[in-house]
């Protein structure tokens, strides 16, 4: 197995592959920048926290690694419903990177190699006989810049933002990857030569400012949670109750905005120098000032990059303005009057692919054995990258072992939503996960990722027997307690009324079911323990599930019904190589789109824009016709 790139996707891919027993080589342009966090210094956040939990439940590394290296942690959206609670941790970047490197080094079957991969080679490339034009090619090897060949059965491309990268700070352009690291300038050409369609995307990062030059007394302190919840289901909560480091909040003002407006002509984006498409959810401060002109201030967070560095990340203020303008604008912020910049803000442009060329397994439709993950697939974010790397690594390994691939659907995981969006929908900007993209989010919670996915991780071989058994026990605990509660009725006794009163809850007129009481907003499962004498001892994890299941039962039941409908057509598979030209009555637009996307199921087909419900009906009838003909 060859993995190209040792960022968050590449690390997960290599670990999964090696842990599944395949000899794996991980290429990076710099072994000193493994699992580098070139932008924000945190892991998790809204919906991204869900991804980390899911990675963990499938046997990935990100959750464990951040639990070992975080310096502050917060559960976001605590006042909202459980579906949108999201864990976010500030990382010590250097520790995060070092810790991940050590894990890779300790893993059997895994080799780390510093070299730039410049070419992919298929069996056709290595033989004199060419297979037919429309035949699927098979990956056979990669070649590095030095000319060395590495023969392999699968390749996973996780090149991040390095392909033909260039960084822009005002008029200054440097042809490097992030942080001045070497760009990879050859691989794109080889991919294009193999018929792969490339996109050009851009993103950006703010300046890092010397902590010693900041006057924190003019900013609001942002502390971590008092009780810290770990990311990984395997981390003991007691081990993560550390002393935390604070972040700081300040604001831009009219002066900041004026400086930006005055210098817009020197911004490479507004001057038209940048050709790549940037993410709308992560706008530069220039974008914010221009697009939301009526806002007279924007929030800016100062976040430490680690314990052993003086650098502070200026969250909310990424920019590609020239260095002198950067000084001027950052110094308008309260507390940053005397700020010293350690690293400039910059925008970065890079090559990535149109991910519609991939199957839901993250394998290229046109080349067997070629997989990819991360920003190379047009996504954005460490967590989005890591989960794709994990899925690509698992599926490449499953293919080599001749086993069933891992495809998560939209009702099973955020990872499923993310990959389905990437491979099925048109994507014109770096893709970021959001809870609103998950239509079944009441079911896809971060708190139940273990219940949803541990079994799959176990079947794949990345989860230990012990861990799997623990989840089975938790499941059983929840099931038994829920069925017990369904039968418990509470009378209007004195003890009950006193307890209700103590929580400001309306007293009972008559008997009521225990579930009914749990549903009251001011009460919950734990609070009612004193009036529920038959209650067995229940683990905190199971108690949380019981509470959520009862409190939001109506909503969850409705969503489960929708999921049943969804799965019905999701289960209808379309065979590989299905010939849409043979289907009569398909509208032309639908036929073209279906041929282009080659959906793997009727469900996926129905989500392609330009394919109507009538086309889906026609497809169903045609497939039934095929089935009956085969029976004859």
């Amino acid at each position, binding site marked *: 197995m060859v993995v190209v790139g040792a960022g968050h996707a590449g690390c997960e891919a290599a670990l999964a592959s090696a842990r599944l027993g395949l000899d794996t080589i991980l290429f990076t342009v710099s072994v000193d920048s493994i699992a580098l966090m070139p932008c924000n210094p945190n892991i998790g956040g809204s919906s991204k926290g869900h991804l980390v939990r899911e990675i963990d439940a499938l046997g990935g590394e990100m959750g464990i690694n951040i639990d070992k290296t975080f310096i502050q942690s917060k559960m976001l959206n605590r006042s909202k419903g459980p579906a949108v609670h999201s864990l976010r941790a500030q990382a010590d970047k250097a520790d995060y990177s070092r810790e991940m490197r050590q894990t890779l080094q300790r893993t059997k079957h895994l080799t780390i190699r510093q070299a730039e991969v410049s070419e992919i080679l298929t069996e056709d490339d290595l033989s004199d006989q060419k297979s037919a034009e429309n035949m699927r090619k098979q990956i056979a090897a990669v070649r590095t810049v030095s000319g060395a060949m590495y023969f392999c059965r699968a390749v996973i491309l996780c090149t991040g933002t390095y392909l033909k990268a260039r960084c822009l700070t005002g008029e200054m352009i440097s042809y490097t990857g992030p942080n001045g690291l070497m760009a990879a300038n050859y691989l794109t050409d080889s991919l294009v030569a193999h018929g792969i369609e490339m996109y050009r995307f851009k993103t950006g990062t703010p300046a890092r400012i010397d902590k010693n030059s900041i006057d924190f007394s003019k900013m609001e302190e942002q502390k971590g949670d008092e009780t810290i919840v770990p990311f990984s289901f395997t981390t003991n909560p007691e081990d993560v109750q550390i002393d935390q480091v604070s972040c700081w909040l300040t604001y831009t003002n009219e002066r900041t905005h004026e400086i930006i407006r005055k210098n817009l002509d020197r911004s490479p984006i507004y001057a038209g120098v940048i050709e790549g498409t940037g993410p709308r959810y992560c706008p530069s401060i220039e974008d914010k000032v221009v697009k939301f002109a009526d806002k007279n201030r924007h929030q800016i967070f100062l976040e430490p990059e680690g314990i052993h560095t003086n650098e502070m990340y200026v969250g909310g203020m990424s920019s590609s303005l020239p260095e002198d303008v950067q000084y001027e604008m950052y110094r308008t912020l309260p507390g940053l009057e005397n700020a010293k910049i350690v690293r400039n803000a910059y925008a970065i442009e890079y090559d990535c692919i149109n991910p519609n060329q991939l199957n839901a397994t993250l394998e290229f439709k046109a080349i067997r054995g070629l997989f990819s993950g991360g920003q190379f697939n047009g996504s954005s974010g460490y967590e989005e990258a890591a989960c794709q790397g994990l899925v690509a690594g698992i599926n490449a390994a499953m293919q080599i072992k001749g086993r069933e691939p891992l495809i998560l659907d939209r009702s099973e995981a955020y990872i499923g939503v993310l990959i389905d969006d990437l491979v099925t929908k048109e994507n014109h900007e770096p893709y970021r996960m959001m809870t*609103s993209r998950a239509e079944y989010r009441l079911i896809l919670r971060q708190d139940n990722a273990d219940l949803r996915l541990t079994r799959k991780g176990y079947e794949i071989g990345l989860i230990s027997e012990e861990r799997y058994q623990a989840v089975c026990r938790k499941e059983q605990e929840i099931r038994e307690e829920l069925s017990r509660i369904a039968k418990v009725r509470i009378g209007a006794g004195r003890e009950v009324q006193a307890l209700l009163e103590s929580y400001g809850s309306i007293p009972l007129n008559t008997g009521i079911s225990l579930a009914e009481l749990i549903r009251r907003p001011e009460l919950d499962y734990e609070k009612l323990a004193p009036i529920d004498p038959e209650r067995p001892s229940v683990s905190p994890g199971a108690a949380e599930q019981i509470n959520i299941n009862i409190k939001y039962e109506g909503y969850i039941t409705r969503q489960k019904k929708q999921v049943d409908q969804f799965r019905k057509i999701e289960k209808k598979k379309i065979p590989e190589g299905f010939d849409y030209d043979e289907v009569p009555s398909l509208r032309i637009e639908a036929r073209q789109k279906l041929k282009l996307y080659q959906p793997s199921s009727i469900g996926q087909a129905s989500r392609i824009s330009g394919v109507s419900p009538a086309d889906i009906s026609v497809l*169903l*009838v045609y497939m039934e016709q095929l089935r009956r003909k085969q029976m004859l």
Partner: protein
Amino acid sequence: MSSDTIAAVATAMMGAGIGIVRISGDQAVETADQIFRKKGGGALREQESHTIHYGTIWDSGEMIDEVMVLLMRAPRSYTREDTVEIDCHGGVYVTKRILEAVIRHGARIAEPGEFTKRAFLNGRIDLSQAESVMDVIQAKNKLALNNSVRQLSGMLSKEIQEIRSVILHEIARIESALDDPEHMSLDGYSDFLQKIVSEQEQKIRRLLAGSENGRLLREGISTVIVGKPNAGKSSLLNALLGEERAIVTNIAGTTRDTLQEQMNFNGILLNVTDTAGIRRTEDAVERIGVERSKQHLADADLAIYVADASTKLDENDFEILDLLTGHKVIILLNKSDLPAVTTEEEIAAVVRARIRSEEEDWNLRIFSFSAKEGEGMERLEHAVQEMFFSGEISFDQEVCITNVRHQSALSDALASIELVKQSIADAMPEDFYSIDLMNAYEKLGTIIGESVEDDLVNEIFGSFCMGK
């Protein structure tokens, strides 16, 4: 595959004959049981397969019609699913009301071609017919789609778009705050949302009330009034509208110079378009109006040709008569205060000479009419009824079905909005609101033929500043 319960009208919606509403699926019998009262008592579900039952259909405490109900259990039915057929006395309104009652009690309206599709998928239709099944599905969909869009008035579509954009904006507000809780707060938001959803609820209720009167779509027999300028077209329309029998609702004209009115002729809905007078003209603006009149005529089910009794038939009349070839026509001779110079017999002679001379038994309907004295109105009404009940002119069934479809989408949207209000009342967290708001948004979208796609993500990024 999916075995949810579907319903449709299985007969043409004409004045004559019986109307059949067909229900198919797991819940077909239960659905029918909720609205059918069998004579002599007892529920359908207790009956043998392939039996016929006499009784009445009830909805909201009101008896709709006396009917015969056929019960066919799976697999011995067309779709190989449990099937119930309700045969009523016909009449567009009765058939439609029964369909509405069935939809309200758990079935959903069938997609075009869906009965045939199920019949095939369940093995009822022979393999050799698969291709024609696919053709039927695609063709019926195309027809329904065309109708749905064509029949939708600009005003309705605008109103739905407005409601949708308000809803979408609120979803985006909630989602932005969830995505970036440190930038956006939702404190006190539920009171604000409560007000907004109540307003949207009222709007949807109004649309729903309108749809129940068949006002949402131009349901009915598409009728045009043609004639040369000043022949008396407008006085005819005014006379029709001035009468008690004409229940009139205004529908904003789709074109600048055509006015459309809907009226009920003893239970037969007419969509009447008053067109610009047709004549040869050099005036560019007027010529556009004339062209448009011709277009309306081409699309119409029924044409009412108004001729002026006070002038001789001229070139312009002849041209109109030529245009009328192949149409169902009623000819009215408008008697003004001026002395009459053209008679019914004269017109009849011209008509016979110029149009449809090949049809010998053509039933020519020509009579005089006077807007002032109300003369001829009864004959007109009678003529329309006769043509309708003989099947000479018929109701556009697709429009009728589309209307029921829209009604059910509006009801669903309303139910989702009510759930949002309930969630607010129950002090649920804000993320629960957006789930039902999204459902309402989707349902409303089906009426104007718009899906969700990336609307939300675009709205979030377009309206709310977020991100690092």
